[in-house]
């Protein structure tokens, strides 16, 4: 009989080895999938994992794009991870991301066409972060005041935010010179509001920079600051936390504020940079993918950084595989799903020991 035995502390060795194991398993399973679809499995795997980094034709462009794609994922996931450690389940980051983008863009567009970058862009950043933060305060306050489940409220608010987004793209924020089509002005073409590359050709824009700063701050917070300790304590043992003087309500509000604010910032940096404008389907699931990234990264800042980059790699590699090998996008989606399953599945090895045989009588 096979059974699992909890390790006293998570194994460091396995924690490092499991992601590699998962990627290998995914390559095998994915290879079989691609072979069934009539493609050369080795070539497909190489295109997804190797070409974005080292292909002569693409790599100089794709490598920086990894940062562009990973930036918002990491930024949001870092915010979520603190709450997840404390057992505060904000799964509505997608909504906070949207609201952040709307608020930030609205501030920027209100000033159009005034030129004052020193003032307008910072104001937009503040508005974006604040927008996400306030949107996250709804589930937070409902939880602390009325004990309402924050998983559900934050999720429901995503749909509300999506409807608001459609309404904004078609109504209040619609580009008056856009020929009646939905969508706002392009903020990239408005110098005072554009989130430009900081160093040309590197993909480093303000959002990516913010993501890196968030990783560092989160690392310090987690290891050196009492807030990180309190969050872990509350997550592991709410009772002990109360004895230690942790106010659960205060912590819920702080966790939700941080995650909402960072999600809002991510939305703002995306709408002013890579996306450029508010449009009906501006949100492309970053808020949900970030939840997965947070867990893949084991809720640890460095882990999240790596997980975000890995996700970005499969996105970009998947795109290359689509048009170079003619793989349908559905196959890529399936492949990503498999990767996530394997990553989640092998995690068991770092927390548990596999024992074969009957349990000894103690």
């Amino acid at each position, binding site marked *: 009989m096979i059974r699992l*035995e909890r390790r006293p502390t998570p194994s460091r060795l396995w924690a490092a080895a499991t992601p590699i194991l998962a990627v290998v398993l995914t390559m095998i399973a994915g290879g079989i999938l691609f072979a069934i679809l009539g493609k050369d499995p080795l070539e497909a795997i190489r295109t997804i994992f190797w070409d974005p980094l080292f292909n002569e034709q693409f790599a100089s462009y794709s490598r920086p794009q990894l940062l562009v794609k990973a930036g918002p994922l990491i930024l949001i996931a870092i915010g979520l991870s603190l709450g997840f450690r404390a057992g505060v389940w904000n799964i509505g980051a997608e909504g906070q991301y949207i609201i952040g983008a709307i608020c930030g863009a609205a501030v920027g567009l209100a000033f159009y066409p005034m030129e004052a970058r020193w003032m307008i862009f910072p104001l937009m950043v503040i508005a974006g972060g604040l927008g996400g933060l306030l949107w996250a305060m709804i589930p937070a306050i*409902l939880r602390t005041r009325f*004990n309402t489940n924050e998983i559900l409220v934050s999720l429901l608010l995503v749909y509300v935010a999506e*409807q608001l987004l459609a309404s904004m793209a078609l109504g209040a924020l619609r580009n008056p010179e856009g020929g009646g089509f939905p969508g706002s002005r392009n903020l990239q073409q408005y110098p005072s509001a554009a989130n430009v590359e900081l160093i040309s050709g590197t993909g480093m824009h303000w959002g990516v920079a913010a993501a890196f700063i968030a990783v560092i701050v989160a690392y310090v917070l987690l290891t050196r600051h009492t807030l990180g300790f309190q969050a872990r304590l509350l997550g592991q043992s709410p009772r002990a936390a109360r004895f230690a003087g942790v106010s659960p309500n205060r912590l819920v509000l702080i966790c939700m504020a941080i995650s909402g604010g960072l999600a809002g910032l991510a939305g703002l940096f995306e709408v002013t940079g890579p996306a450029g404008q508010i449009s009906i389907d501006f949100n492309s699931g970053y808020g949900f993918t970030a939840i997965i990234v947070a867990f893949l990264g084991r809720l640890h800042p460095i882990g999240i950084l790596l997980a975000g980059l890995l996700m970005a790699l499969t996105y970009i590699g998947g795109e290359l595989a689509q048009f170079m090998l003619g793989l349908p996008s*559905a196959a890529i989606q399936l492949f990503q799903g498999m990767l996530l399953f394997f990553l989640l599945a092998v995690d068991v090895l770092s927390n548990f020991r596999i024992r074969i045989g009957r349990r000894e009588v103690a």
Partner: protein
Amino acid sequence: MDFSAINPTVLIASLMVASTPILLAALGELIVEKAGVLNLGVEGMMITGAVCGFAVAVESGSPWLGFLAAMAGGAVLALLFGVLTQLLLSNQVATGLALTLFGLGLSALIGQGYIGIKPPPVGDVNFGPLADIPVLGRILFRHDIIVYFSLAMVAGTWWWLKSTRAGLILRAVGESHEAAHALGYNVIGIRLAAIAFGGAMAGLGGAYLSLIRVPQWTEGMTAGAGWIALAIVVFASWRAGRVLLGAYLFGGVTVLQLNLQAAGLAVPVEYLSMSPYLITILVLVIMSSDRRKALGAPASLGRVFHASS
């Protein structure tokens, strides 16, 4: 503007049809959550059911085989989630989200050869003269069999949870898996069964879309119905009867909105589309702020169970 054009009888009859897919999926998720498991992959299971049902119905010529295949497809996908979360103890939220991604991809691949095809038709149940009773005939006696099945499942689920021993055990597992384990119940086995049931119901809901309500296969055709099913379970405060109410309310708002437009009323579509979610949040707040009454959420919902100690 001509409100007389809106016939309440017809409105009710069509909202029943519109709500059936989300009702089926929500009932399945209700059982899953009652067992203490939060599976956010409803959308993925629904769309997998939609394509499995469609493909089998087209190949075999029998919609009934299609419905069975849809339930099987949904259940298999759900068990994948079950194995990961129950045996390998992965995080339920992340696994559920991954399941949706996986299901959307898988269904699109399976469905590649089935675009632009008409599935075998499913007729309405023939109640003879009953169908001609004014008002009631239209509401009650002119639907396809799945609509009646979904209503029967509401009653069945309610009765099963409330009055059977098995239902009691399921609820015990969801309330406190440690206690249930200590009493000698197989927590993991029960949860896996519940998860498979949830998958089968979601799959059936998906097939209702692809075989009756739409009926055609196109990628991504569930268009978010699975997420609505999740919201309905919450709205219903984990009670079967209220799941029915919630599903019909959601379906009703959509159908009413379209009918108002057809009658020439300028409706603020976005704001009306938001309203069910806002109402659900409001209901949640009211329920949870009343501390005398239990919220109804299973106490172990979403928590990992490991019987090591």
